[in-house]
């Protein structure tokens, strides 16, 4: 079968859901963050394949912006995690219950 748009979209959907599973099921802050990156990458793959099969480069410019924003987001998020770790000595979400009522 010839590889078309659906193939790429199915891969992207599966990858997005793997990331979602990681965010919900894992308990380590850093692994949760990596799963978030996985979800962002899945969205990028969908955008690039739509751009390719619609003959429109705007989707790839969007992906370029997403990659840049993701880099900034990772820097800020990891700095937050380090600050949190310095205060609480843990990177485990079950130990971070300060905001629980």
């Amino acid at each position, binding site marked *: 079968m010839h590889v078309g748009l659906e193939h790429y979209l199915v891969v992207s959907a599966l990858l997005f859901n793997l990331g979602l599973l990681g965010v919900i099921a894992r308990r380590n802050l850093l*692994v949760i963050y990596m799963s978030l990156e996985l979800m962002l990458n899945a969205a990028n793959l969908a955008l690039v394949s739509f751009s390719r099969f619609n003959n429109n480069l705007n989707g790839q410019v969007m992906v370029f*912006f997403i990659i840049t924003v993701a880099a900034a987001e990772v*820097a800020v998020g990891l700095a937050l995690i380090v600050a949190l770790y310095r205060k609480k000595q843990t990177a485990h979400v079950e130990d971070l219950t300060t905001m629980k009522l």
Partner: protein
Amino acid sequence: MAAQDYLFYIFAALTLLCGFLVVVNPFSRNPVTSAMFLVLTIVSMAGLFVLLHAFFLAAVQILVYAGAVMVLFLFVIMLLDLKEEERRKIRFFGLITGLISVMAVLGVVLKTYLVDSKLNANLQLPTIEGGTAALGRILFKNYLLPFEILSLLLLVAMVGVILLSKKDLK
């Protein structure tokens, strides 16, 4: 099947396998292993980008993600010295909730893609090439303002990170 189709299946399988091992690795619960498999996922996804003729994005993906972002991740993992993770068990309730929600989302998305959609109704033969020249032209002609705002965002992120990582936050 053409050679490109085989390459697609190889890269897609590699991406999904490594992505799976990032999230649920049966052999090791160490965050470093997850980070290494995330690098592999990103590299094989760059392969998929090349198959989609997005050459510039494939290069950026490897440079920014596999290079800068993952080094940052590994740096923080080494800094935090997480030994505790190995001992903790994965929570059964969290896994069940996660699986249920993932199955629900996946079902909706796949049904939309494969059953309901008319994705192929108005598709032409793909002819575009995502090389550096084409992408640069469109970036600096149509998207100049967002590009400049992005540089501001990076500056803000840099200032924020420096402020956050100061020893005594006041």
